[in-house]
């Protein structure tokens, strides 16, 4: 709208200037210099017409030509003061003047139009280039199509842009721009159907046929098929600034490529996810299969040993004890798998309450009593004042660390549990006298199913424990890390923020 208004104002100004110029020439030649030679007068007027044609639009130049001709006739060609002409040669002068000025006006207008078009084309090329760059930088495939629509609207100064993709009889529409327009889905379907059935190149408009327009709220919306090669994959709708048809085609081509790229990225991501979950399943099955067989074998043999008459009576007690500890091992495994599934599903809620650090340590030791049987445990808690956190999750995480320490340090060695309260929260260290962690294993130690290079051939251990610790602590906004102690063993530290959830309503029940 503003463009149109400024154009009208410019035209009015040009008309006024042309009128003034004609009046000046007429007065100067007629009243002041009193020139009567038709050739001199007509060439002076021609100068005015040429200047006007070079600066104004065609109709202003034509109007100036006609006005100049009338002035020439009225003021200079005898009989002066009338529009009639006495001599035949003056008729010739008059019409030659008119013809020359019209031709000059037209030539000038054509030249100006060419220049204008070239500038416009350069401008659109620059816009297309910028858009292509936007497209190439698009990486996140989830938001890609909305980003794409926004880029088109921004780069081409359009008031409304929509990328419409057909999906199972419906349209997925990604819109951008200052205006909101309710696209008529039937119109889209019609445009898409025609793009599917015909493909024809219009050499004059330098465009593929298939562009349609629709009018919504007095706004003309242009619909351009998006094609990859010749196959239509959707519709680009644009409204606002006039964009040349050929440019729209090219624009649609870039958008189509961008859509293809986005879909490819999405497929690749999905493929990657599937592959990861497949890997996870395989690892889980291998790990559980491995850890189920040993206790099952031991239980089966021990149970039949108890029944067998050949077994000495004093052996039976040991066999029963073995069964109990293997059953505990199985149930730990089962709990781990359940805990892992709950972490995966995000189904772990926290329930903060006031508790003593010593209670947490006791609860954790309780959970892995059998595993710790062969180790000495040294506990130091300072201070043992109540802290507010989720005691179950914290104890569970600590239990996994204790189990880990027991599994990877020689039996008879000491496991240290040191608890203190710092600015960060409740800090609990677990130190063992095992071989420590190989530097190569450190970065991946908390990964699911990751087992240290040295422990991979060991029969026990599934690579679940430390991952679960990490998962449990993440729910509590805590953290866990590992370092090798000065005396060689591994030292795991967990930190759980305390009291941070006091403002919240008492935790949800689990």
């Amino acid at each position: 709208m503003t463009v149109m208004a400024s154009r009208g104002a410019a035209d009015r100004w040009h008309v006024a200037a042309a009128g003034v110029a004609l009046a000046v020439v007429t007065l100067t030649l007629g009243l002041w210099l009193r020139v009567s030679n038709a050739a001199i007068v007509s060439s002076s007027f021609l100068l005015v017409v040429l200047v006007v044609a070079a600066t104004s639009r065609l109709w202003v130049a034509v109007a100036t030509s006609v006005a100049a001709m009338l002035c020439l006739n009225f003021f200079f060609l005898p009989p002066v003061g009338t529009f009639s002409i006495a001599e035949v040669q003056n008729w010739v002068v008059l019409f030659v003047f008119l013809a020359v000025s019209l031709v000059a006006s037209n030539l000038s207008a054509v030249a100006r139009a060419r220049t204008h078009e070239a500038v416009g084309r350069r401008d659109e090329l620059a816009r297309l280039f910028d858009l292509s760059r936007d497209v190439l930088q698009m990486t996140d495939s989830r938001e890609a199509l909305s980003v794409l629509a926004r880029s088109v609207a921004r780069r081409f100064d359009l008031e409304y842009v929509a990328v419409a993709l057909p999906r199972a009889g419906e349209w997925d529409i990604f819109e951008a721009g200052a205006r909101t327009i309710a696209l008529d889905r039937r119109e889209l379907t019609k445009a898409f159907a025609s793009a599917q059935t015909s493909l024809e190149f219009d050499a004059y408009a330098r465009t593929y046929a298939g562009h349609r327009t629709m009018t919504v709220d007095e706004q003309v919306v242009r619909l351009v098929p998006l094609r990859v090669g010749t196959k239509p994959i959707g519709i680009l709708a644009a409204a606002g600034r006039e964009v040349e048809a050929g440019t729209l085609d090219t624009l649609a081509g870039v958008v189509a490529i961008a859509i293809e790229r986005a879909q490819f990225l999405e497929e690749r991501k999905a493929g990657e996810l599937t592959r990861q979950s497949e890997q996870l399943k395989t690892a889980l099955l291998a790990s559980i299969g491995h850890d189920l067989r040993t206790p099952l074998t031991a239980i089966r043999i021990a149970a039949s040993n108890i029944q067998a008459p050949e077994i000495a009576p004093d052996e039976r007690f040991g066999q029963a004890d073995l069964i109990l500890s293997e059953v505990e091992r199985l149930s730990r495994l089962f709990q781990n798998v359940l805990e892992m599934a709950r972490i995966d599903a995000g189904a772990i809620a926290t329930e903060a309450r006031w508790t003593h650090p010593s209670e947490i340590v006791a609860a954790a030791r309780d959970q892995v009593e059998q595993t710790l049987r062969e180790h000495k445990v040294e506990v130091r808690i300072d201070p043992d004042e109540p802290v507010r956190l989720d005691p179950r999750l914290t104890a569970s995480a600590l239990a996994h660390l204790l189990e880990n320490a027991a599994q990877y340090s020689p039996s008879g060695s000491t496991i240290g549990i040191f608890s203190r309260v710092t600015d960060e929260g409740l800090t609990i260290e677990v130190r063992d006298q095992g071989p420590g962690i190989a530097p190569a294993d450190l970065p991946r130690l908390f990964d699911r199913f990751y087992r240290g290079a040295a422990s991979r051939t060991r029969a026990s251990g599934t690579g679940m424990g430390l991952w679960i610790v990490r998962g449990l602590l993440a729910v509590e906004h805590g953290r866990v890390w590992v370092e090798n102690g000065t005396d060689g063993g591994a030292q795991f530290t967990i930190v759980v923020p305390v009291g941070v959830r006091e403002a919240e309503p008492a935790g949800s029940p689990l």
Partner: protein
Amino acid sequence: MAPRSRILLVDDEVAIQRAVAPLLRSRGYDVEIAGTGAEALRSVAARTPDLVVLDLGLPDVEGTHVCQQIRAKSAVPVIVLSARGSEADKVNALDLGADDYVTKPFGPEELLARIRVALRRLESKDSEDTGVFRAGALTIDYDRRRVVRGDTEIRLTPKEFELLSLLAKNHDRVLTHRAVLKAVWGANAVEQPEHLWTLVAQLRKKIEPDPANPKYLLSEPWVGYRFVTE
């Protein structure tokens, strides 16, 4: 009664040690325990057990490697415990000289039966290389290359006889497909199991009373064949 047989149990799982050792002791065997591959090799060299029960998942070295090392020094029968569930490990161990395998989780009778067979084969080894072999109604005369079931003589092609005598001489233990192919057809044939399938089918038709439910020539799925005498 013969002197008690000495069995070396190699497994790093304390649970398995605590269950299997009493089982074996209660059946009259002397049991020694090794928790690592290195310990196992030392024990085999120093104490010459009569039989080794070897778990394939050891903390220090691959079980198959231990198997190979034992075989390099001694002819002691080796029964492999495999928890991996993968056939490849078992076959590998058997090809590297193990005599038999038991898959975890196993029952006591399964393990005891394998141990009995392996020890018995050890005792009667010398008498089997020549002469006559009997299993149920089946008689194999190695010297005359004759096979008789009940009263009827069974005519076998040379290859069939070769396969049958190979399996019979290793009766009650598993021979891997690879081992059989190598022994009967030569090293170049080990990747061509079709030969073996065809020959086994022919042989079963001739020696088995009911070839669809073989009694002597049993398949160990994905592993190999076993000639059963009991």
